C-alpha cells in the first residue's frame, strides 16, 4: 500500500503551510492596499466578467420583469396610499430646508459644506463571491474613475451596503456590511419621533441570523422595535443620514450597563445590481489638523 505522503512531500506540505500563514498574515494586516499583481489579476478578470455579465443581466432581467408584473398590482395599491402623504411631507421638507439654510447663515456656517454633502459615482456590479464566507462585490469603476479605498457604498434610497476595500485601476471590490469585519464600529443613531436622538455603535454582523448588532446604546434610551437606524456621520468614514436598517429586537448587553439591539439591514444584500459610491466633500476636523 503506497503511503499518502513520502518524506519529500511532507516537507513540501510543511513549506506550503508556512507560506499560507505568511500570506494570511500579509493580507490581514490593516490598511493594505491591493498590490500591483492583485490589481492586474483583478482588472483582467474584471474585464471578462464585464463581457459575460452584460448578456447574463439581460436574460436575468427578463425573468425579473415577469416576477415584477405579478407584484405590480399589489404594489400599486400600497403606493397610492403612500402618495397621499407625499405632498405634505415634501412641503414640510421644503420648509425645513429653508429654515435650516437661514439658521446656518445666521450661525455663519454658510460656506462650510455640510457633513452630509457628498459626491456620487454610480457603478454596476460585475461579480460577486458566492462562497458566502466572503461578502464581496466587484464593481466596474476603479481608481481611474476616482474611486478610493474606504469610500462608502449605498444603493437606492440611501441604504448603506458597505465600503470599498480594494480599488484597482478599472475595477474595485466592495466589502458588504454583512462582512463581520467591515461592519465593525460604524457610528449610528436612531432618530425617534419625540425626544433626543439615540446614539450607538454598529458592532458586527451575525452570519447565522443575517442581522447587525447595534450596541452601546444608553441604558435609559427608549429603543423600540421598528425604529430606523441611520449613520450619525460622527465617524470619519460614513456621511450622515445613510439608512442602515430597522430594529428587530432589543436587549440589554451582558453587563447590564448599556442596551443592545439587533438590526435588520435595510438593503436587500442579495439583490444588488447598480450601486452608488459616495465621496465626502468634507473631511473630519481631526484630519485637517486645525
Amino acid at each position, binding site marked *: 500500500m503506497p503511503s499518502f505522503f513520502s518524506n519529500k512531500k511532507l516537507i513540501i506540505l510543511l513549506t506550503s503551510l508556512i507560506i499560507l500563514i505568511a500570506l494570511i498574515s500579509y493580507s490581514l494586516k490593516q490598511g493594505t492596499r491591493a498590490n500591483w499583481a492583485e490589481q492586474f489579476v483583478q482588472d483582467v478578470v474584471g474585464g471578462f466578467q464585464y463581457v459575460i455579465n452584460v448578456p447574463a443581466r439581460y436574460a436575468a432581467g427578463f425573468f425579473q420583469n415577469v416576477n415584477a408584473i405579478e407584484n405590480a398590482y399589489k404594489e400599486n395599491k400600497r403606493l397610492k396610499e403612500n402618495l397621499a402623504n407625499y405632498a405634505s411631507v415634501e412641503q414640510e421638507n421644503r420648509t425645513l430646508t429653508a429654515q435650516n439654510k437661514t439658521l446656518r447663515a445666521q450661525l455663519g456656517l454658510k460656506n462650510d459644506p455640510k457633513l452630509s454633502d457628498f459626491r456620487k459615482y454610480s457603478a454596476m456590479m460585475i461579480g460577486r463571491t458566492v*462562497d458566502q464566507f466572503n461578502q464581496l462585490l466587484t464593481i466596474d469603476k476603479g481608481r481611474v474613475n476616482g474611486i478610493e479605498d474606504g469610500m462608502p457604498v449605498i444603493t437606492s434610497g440611501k441604504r448603506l451596503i458597505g465600503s470599498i476595500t480594494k480599488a484597482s485601476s478599472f475595477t474595485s471590490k466592495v466589502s458588504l456590511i454583512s462582512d463581520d469585519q467591515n461592519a465593525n464600529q460604524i457610528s449610528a443613531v436612531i432618530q425617534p419621533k419625540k425626544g433626543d436622538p439615540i446614539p450607538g455603535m454598529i458592532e458586527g454582523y451575525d452570519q447565522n441570523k443575517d442581522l447587525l448588532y447595534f450596541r452601546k446604546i444608553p441604558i435609559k434610551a427608549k429603543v423600540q422595535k421598528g425604529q430606523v437606524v441611520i449613520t450619525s456621520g460622527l465617524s470619519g468614514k460614513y456621511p450622515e443620514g445613510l439608512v442602515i436598517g430597522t430594529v428587530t429586537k432589543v436587549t440589554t448587553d451582558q453587563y447590564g450597563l448599556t442596551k443592545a439591539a439587533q438590526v435588520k439591514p435595510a438593503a436587500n444584500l442579495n439583490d444588488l445590481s447598480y450601486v452608488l459610491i459616495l465621496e465626502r466633500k468634507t473631511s473630519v476636523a481631526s484630519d485637517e489638523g486645525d
Partner: protein
Amino acid sequence: MKQSKVFILLFFLFIIQGTVIPLIPLFHAWDIQWVPEFVFVAILMIAFFGSLSWGMRYALIFGFMTDIVYSSVLGVYAFSLTLTVYLMSMISRWVNLNLVITILLVAAGIVAMEFQVYVIYLMIGLTDQSLGVFFQARVPSTLVLNALFTLLIYYPFRRYLVKMSDWIQK
C-alpha cells in the same frame, strides 16, 4: 495548444461562478447556501483522467485567482484546492473510476475542501458561521449542485481528457 483549451474552459467556468450564478434568484432562497465549485470539479476530473501534475498546477493557479478576485485573504483557496486535489487523486488510484465513483469522490473532495476553507476562515475570524449551519444549510445543497454539474460534464469531459492524455503520451 491543447493545454490552452483546458485553461480557457476553466477560466470560463471561473468567470461564470462569479457573474451568472449570483444573478439566478434561486441562489438566495430559503437561507440555503448553494456554492458552485465548478472549477474545482473540473480540476478534480483533470487529476483523475488526465494527469495529477496538471491538476495540481491548475488547482494552484485557479486557487490563487479565487483568492485574489473572490476573497479578501490570500492563499486559503490555493492551499485547500491543491491539497484536496492531491489527496483525492491518491484515493482515485485504488478504485475503479466510473460515473458513480467519480461523483462520490468529487462529493468527498468538495466536503474536504469546503471544510478546510471553513476551518481556516473560522480561525482567522473571517466568518462566524456555526458548525450546525455549515453542515445543514451549506454542505447538502452544495453537494447536490456540484454532483449535478459533474453528471453534466462527466462523459464529454472524460472523453476529451482521455484523448488528450493519449496524445501527450505519444
